[in-house]
């Protein structure tokens, strides 16, 4: 069914074992649940496809861009994250909350989950491997400035770093500061500079050098 797929790129310390055994175990579990009528292969395909195509950081980027141009919306977003997400026509699960953290010139917010890998997947999609990795989970709370430097964010010493360890049913997303040089941009143009990492808080939106719009 699944093509045996050898690793061909980059660092794979997080995939150290031959996948064939794990593939076989997964298939066994999947087919048992299907046989017992608790799962269908359509469910599996539908869920995989949703994560690969429909649920991703473009949702969060659109939310951020809208909050940048509409101050009333920004207030609603900061006050009640899930309601503001739904207002733009997206689903937000009732089982978890969402707190939106507004980064400013004085305070830089950054999100981690040290105990597992809680992540606001409804607005950002599934987390990247580095977010779930031991280096990020261990270091983000104790040396956030060093971690930020590795991501290319050099914060002045007088900007306070606030790290949020999401340990409960509440998820966190960063509303980054709108960069200068984006006056008059459309929401679509703005959303294009809001990356996933900006909303985790390990990057800041960058205005491309050639952007003289």
């Amino acid at each position, binding site marked *: *069914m*699944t093509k045996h*797929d050898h*690793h061909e*790129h*980059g*660092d794979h310390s997080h*995939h*150290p074992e031959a*996948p064939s055994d*794990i*593939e076989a*175990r*997964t*298939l066994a*579990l*999947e*087919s*048992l*649940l299907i*046989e*017992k009528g*608790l*799962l269908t292969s359509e469910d*599996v395909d539908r*869920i*995989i496809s949703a*994560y*690969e195509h429909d649920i*991703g950081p473009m949702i969060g980027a659109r939310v951020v861009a809208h909050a940048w141009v509409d101050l009333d919306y920004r207030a609603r977003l900061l006050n009640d994250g899930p309601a503001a997400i739904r207002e733009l026509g997206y689903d937000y699960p009732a089982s978890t909350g969402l*707190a939106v953290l507004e980064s400013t010139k004085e305070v830089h917010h950054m999100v*981690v989950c*040290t*105990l597992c*890998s809680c992540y606001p997947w409804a607005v950002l*999609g*599934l987390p*990247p*491997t*580095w977010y779930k*990795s031991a*280096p*990020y*989970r*261990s*270091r*983000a709370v*104790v040396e956030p400035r060093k971690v930020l430097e*590795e991501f290319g964010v050099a914060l002045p*010493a007088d900007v*306070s*770093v*606030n*790290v*949020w*360890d*999401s*340990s*409960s049913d*509440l998820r966190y997303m960063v509303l980054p500061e709108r960069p200068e040089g984006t006056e008059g941009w459309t929401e679509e143009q703005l959303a294009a500079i809001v990356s996933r990492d900006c909303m985790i808080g390990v990057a800041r939106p960058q205005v491309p050098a050639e952007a003289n719009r």
Partner: protein
Amino acid sequence: MNGIHDMGGMDGFGPVVVEKDEPVFHHRWEGSVRAIMRQTVGRFYNLDEFRNVVERMPPEEYLRASYYERWLHALETLMVQRGVITLEELRSGRANGPSIAANIKHEPRPELIARFSSGDNVVTRNLNPTGHTRLPRYARGKRGVVRTVNGPFLLPDSNAHRGAKVWEACYAVEFTARELWGDRASSIDRVCVDLWESYLRSEEGES
């Protein structure tokens, strides 16, 4: 439990390695594991039980396993524990009969009753349970300030072991980075952790 999963503040794991243009799933099986979890959590087991099983992996195995391998381990464990499948079926890959697992009963979230308010000074308890908890080691016995009041959420310490359903207020508690890490940290940085009410006492000293 004071397990390997409780990583906040540990040294020695090296730099954060970012994979460029990372796909959502590296392999089809990872997507299947995700989908199986989505379709079974809240029905046969709760998320706290799931996390607890992951945390109980032997530390060396936990570190060796990829993220979705840990999930697969937890799914296999819980599916057998709950009677969704038998160990024999898991080994043979063939079903011998229907699932005998009961669906979890959900109760509505009650009204929020919160002992603390935003701005209150609190101290985290020095709890070291051998079961599941969401109070990280680095935040035990520390002084902080309640920033926001949330919930109520089910207390994971009980819910992970199918104990009583204890709904509690949960607070975003702000600590100065120096309170947690001493001089290693910047004097203006802060760390906020979501903590259930029973992890906290008021700073005045009573329990």
